[in-house]
């Protein structure tokens, strides 16, 4: 029963035991088989999406000919880019504020910042619906991309706390003596910020930006309550297609979004890796 008889493997080499391997394999299959079949059937000739009839790119051609879908995709990317930019500024400022200053109400602010992370999406969704209906009615006839303002504001509100969290974790490893040295050498607050703090923060900023971008690109529930007929995003558009049927065209559109997300994640991991390597090499 005890691991003593299996010294060759070591008592803590749990991954060497077959039941655990089987379990791990089963869970990974559970996570990946639905997504893999979704991608595979986007190339399927048959419209019925059940049996394999040979491969085709027709569904992708159909996606690229669907101007509504393309507009929704462009909207999603625009909102994600705007929201990431604003969230990055606000999140970094928040992290600096909590790291650098002591002020009354600091604990209260920290508690409030946790709210966007814990409040259920549906509650935020309806709060923004009411807000943009009764308090700050967002004009519908604004030129693109200003018409996306309401959705962008909502996305920033739930994203920037996450950015603040990531940047703050990075700030914790900042060596304060560098700042003192710079000040002794005559650098002002702005120089210290731009030349010393920001370079140190770079991996955190990249991670925070990726997080904000993905949160915005993925969001369905909050956007569902803030988007109008002319401001659909990609998930909202796909939702309206998905609601009643499973079609290869939706598979193709979904696959494109998966590829975009994967590419972004890979790029961020790579950038972050090289930024960390650079910091390590410099230090």
């Amino acid at each position, binding site marked *: *029963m*005890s691991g*003593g008889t299996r010294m060759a493997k070591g008592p*803590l080499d*749990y*991954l060497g035991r077959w039941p655990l391997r089987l*379990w*791990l394999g089963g*869970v*990974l299959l*559970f*996570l*990946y088989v*639905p*997504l893999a*079949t979704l991608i595979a059937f986007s190339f399927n000739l048959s419209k019925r999406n*059940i049996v394999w009839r040979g491969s085709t790119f027709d569904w992708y051609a159909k996606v690229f000919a669907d101007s509504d879908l393309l507009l929704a995709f462009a909207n999603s990317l625009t909102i994600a880019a705007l929201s990431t930019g604003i969230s990055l*500024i606000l999140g970094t*400022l928040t992290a600096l*504020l909590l*790291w*650098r*200053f002591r*002020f009354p109400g600091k604990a209260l602010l920290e508690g*409030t910042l946790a*709210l*966007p992370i*814990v*409040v*259920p*999406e*549906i*509650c*935020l969704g*309806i*709060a*923004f*619906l*009411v*807000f943009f209906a*009764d*308090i700050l009615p967002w004009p519908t006839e604004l030129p693109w991309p200003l018409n996306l303002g309401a959705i962008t*504001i909502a996305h*920033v*509100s739930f994203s920037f706390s996450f950015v*603040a969290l990531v940047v703050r974790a990075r700030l914790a490893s900042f060596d*304060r003596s560098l700042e003192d040295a710079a000040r002794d050498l005559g650098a002002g*607050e702005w120089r210290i910020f731009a030349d010393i703090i920001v370079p140190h923060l770079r991996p955190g900023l990249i991670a925070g930006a990726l997080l904000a971008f993905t949160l915005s690109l*993925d969001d*369905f*529930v909050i956007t569902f309550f803030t988007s109008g007929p002319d401001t659909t995003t990609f*998930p909202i558009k796909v939702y309206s297609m*998905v*609601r009643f049927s499973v079609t290869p065209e939706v598979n193709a559109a*979904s696959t494109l*979004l*998966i590829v975009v*997300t*994967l590419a972004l*994640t890979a790029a961020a991991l790579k950038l972050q890796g090289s930024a960390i390597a650079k910091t390590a090499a410099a230090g």
Partner: protein
Amino acid sequence: MTAGVTAGTAARGPFALVAAPPLLWLLAFFLVPLAVIWGYSFGHNTSLVSIDVTGTWANYARALQPLYLGIIVKSFWFAALTTLACLILGFPVAVAITFASDRLKPWLLLAIMLPFWTNLLIRTYALMAVLRTEGYLNWLLAAFWNPLAHLAGGPAFVPLGLLHTDFAVVFGLVYVQLPFMVLPLYAALDRLDRSLLEASLDLGAGQLTTFARVVVPLALPGIVSGIVVTLIPSLGAYLTPDLLGGTSSLMIANVIERQFKSANDWPFGAALSFLLMYLTFAAILAQAMLARRHERRHAHG
């Protein structure tokens, strides 16, 4: 050391510059929207478009009527079942990752994280194809059943109606929430002092005893935070019950959505969503208290 100094007179300018944008944003675009629906939850519709905030508790009373209370209780059961299934599925996975070789570990973590980066709607849609009557799960079941039935002379496989059921909702929630459970479990197990496990095994305790009396108590904070981060999003889930559930598998979020998009009873929807928020806060508070007690006990022991 410098923090206290700079908070003094010298840094008043930068302080305002740093503090103003996030604080104003948080106030205008987060606290105000929440405050407005909090106010509306104490009001009633006077016409289709106007709401009178009268301080009435009628909306909360209505939310606790059997019909809606039943949906709240059902949502809680769905969330609890999901959490339990994630814990059972996820714990061995977290153990496997913890004790994996340094070369394999980042890849396993990435494999668990990757579905989490994939759009929620797409993951839910992928499950629709798995669960529907002509879906892959029924196809798989038929592939096992029919040869056996053929040999034994039993009836051919009748596809099960899996989509649009309560089962589909819990299945979907488990699929979506599993990474949230594995990551905190892994974080807790990874911090564990391995010499304690070795000591327990050396002193004659079996793997199961070691697991129950050493691993679980020490990893308790991670288990509790895994439970909370799985339970909360499951409780407030909207998309999964909407797409995978049937007419009777409504959860709280779906009822809230109806008040705003079709029933047009904003005050009642606002009251429901604040009840959901209070439930969420209660879960977080319970976790914080448990974590503190755990810490204190281990500090004294």
